[in-house]
């Protein structure tokens, strides 16, 4: 199989630039990176199909090796259509993101940050359990305070500051 060196060099450059852009924080650059990556992958498919030959239109007197391989081209066509749709969609949500918050950057996950910053102490799980954990209060207290024992566990333990948001 003959390999076209120009194709390979261009492919390498597309992949390198694509990955570099993908690691940026600006969404537009990420999108550009994805476009370059797709084109790099398409080039790879093309290179994988072997050297160029005759158009694959069947004629009885031409041996099979002289045709170029039509399959990679069909695959590339499909992949171009798919990446076109995805690029259009990405542009749409990048625009939406800009309309909503004048943001063109990858945002942090706020809930994730919050969970990461909270202390490992959990008021419900880790608070001291009173020796007497029964839900049944003594007869004389029962009338004014049903379930009093539970309220004690809830209020008397000091809550860590991060619990309040």
């Amino acid at each position: 199989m003959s390999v076209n060196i120009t194709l390979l060099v261009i492919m390498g450059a597309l992949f390198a630039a694509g990955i570099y852009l993908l690691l940026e924080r600006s969404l537009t650059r990420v999108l550009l990176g994805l476009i370059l990556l797709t084109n790099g992958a398409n080039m790879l498919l093309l290179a994988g199909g072997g050297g160029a030959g005759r158009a694959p239109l069947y004629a009885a007197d031409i041996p099979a090796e002289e045709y170029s391989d039509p399959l990679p081209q069909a695959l590339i066509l499909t992949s171009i259509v798919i990446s076109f749709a995805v690029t259009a969609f990405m542009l749409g949500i990048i625009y939406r993101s800009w309309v909503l918050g004048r943001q063109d950057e990858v945002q942090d996950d706020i809930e994730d940050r919050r969970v990461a910053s909270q202390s490992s102490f959990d008021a419900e799980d880790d608070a001291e359990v009173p020796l007497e954990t029964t839900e049944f209060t003594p007869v004389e207290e029962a009338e004014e305070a049903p379930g009093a024992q539970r309220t004690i566990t809830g209020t008397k333990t000091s809550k860590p500051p991060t619990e309040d948001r």
Partner: protein
Amino acid sequence: MNIANLAPLAVVLPFLGAALAFLLIRHSRSQRAVSITTLSVTLLIEIFLLIDTSGKGTTAVFIGNWAAPFGITMVVDQFSALMLVVSSAVSLAVLVYATGQGMTDGDEDGPISIFHPTYLILVAGVSNAFLAGDLFNLYVGFEILLTASYVLMTLGGTTPRIRAGVTYVVVSVVSSMLFLISIGMIYAATGTINMADLALKLADIDHATQMILHLMLLVAFGIKAAIFPLSFWLPDSYPTAPAPVTAVFAGLLTKVGVYAMVRTETLLFPGDRINTLLMVVAMLTMIVGILGALAQSDIKRMLSFTLVSHIGYMVFGLAVSTVIGLGAAVYYVAHHIIVQTSLFLVTGLIERRGGTANMDRLGGLAKISPFLALLFFVPGMNLAGIPPFSGFLGKLGLLQAGVELGTPLAYVLVGAGVLTSLLTLLVIARVWNRAFWRRPEDATHPDPILMATSDDGSAVRNSRRVSKHATGKFAGRNPVDLLPRTMVGATAGLVALGISLTVLGGPLFALSDQAAQQMLERTPYIDAVLGEGATEAAGATP
């Protein structure tokens, strides 16, 4: 007539339904009728397919009658037929749930009308991926379902959804790119992309090259299946989508990745060269995922982490790669699709009834709605693997396979599996204690809707009575039914389906063992696609 020839309908019907639903975009009632009918018919056909294949074994359908390595092939074996039935049943339940939600909230216009066509396209993509007989068709199936999922993920275009959607889209596109690149390299190395043909030809090429191709495919599928070092995107993006969308994503999308991994491991690259790697990855996925779940206070995020964690069990079965192990993994995939989806649907109900899915703000739901508590309890215990539920049966099979393998690493993996199961129970118990058992007043910031009472002092059933008192979510809004019958009914149906996995445990395990047997043998698949005796012919040539 051969029933297996109906297999392409599993892809074509949802597409036709999607087209019709798109035309009916202004008529929400007929749109709902179209999509529900389409999915019901698809499910019916797939049940016939499953019955047919469980008797006859693997069959291949050649689209347009082009012979195997050249044309598009669809292959139905026990594994793919089982996946088709489970996925369609789950999508039908979620569709009914979503329809109920849409009808109750009166989202007649607006972007929600795009939900039905997109949803059907998602189902078509999932079916296509399960049926694909060549790698590129698998790629196309992935792209169909992913593109539909991008739209569903960002439905409505609110700030949190756009933020999560961007991450999700970029990660998915990168994984698809990896997949496409590996297809290109595999084609360059072997000159074919038909999976049965590849199964014969990949063995002939250089070992180092094989390993590169193998690992590239695994990374691409690993991102989609959310396996530990590649799972970071999932808990970040899933929880923000609407409840039915998260439910169907959690149930189906990661499992398509697992399905592709199983095919790669059994059909394309058999042998145990990377089983050690897979075992380590499975262990890390289980442990890291469940530890992440322990830290969460939002139920949806917590469930997303348990989703990641339990993918580890499936990789466990795949890594052991004996008939018992793989069979248990197949059963576990079916179990997990149903259970994880029902848990997300129940969380959607909790969010409606309690006003939030945050555990710090919930309480007393067991008293307010005992049936909701039951609906959460059953799949919750099922996920944790408490007997007699299907989670227990699946985990038992996996642990048995691990012990039978008997290597030190397998024992570590068995230990990790048990630990993860216990931690899952702890996580579920935490939700149960907080959202259901404690009194609403004990919550850190109880949601006003939980404290609302009707005039006679009893807890309220729907906001027709709440809206007079409430100050929070329902103030100034039209009264809505908090727990509409359709939504509760769909959830209950799915929970019942989860229980039926136990009732039908015997036949199902027999089926999944048979599927595993055939996948490990490989010849049934290859012979079905390339014709009788293709395996021996290839074995004779080199």
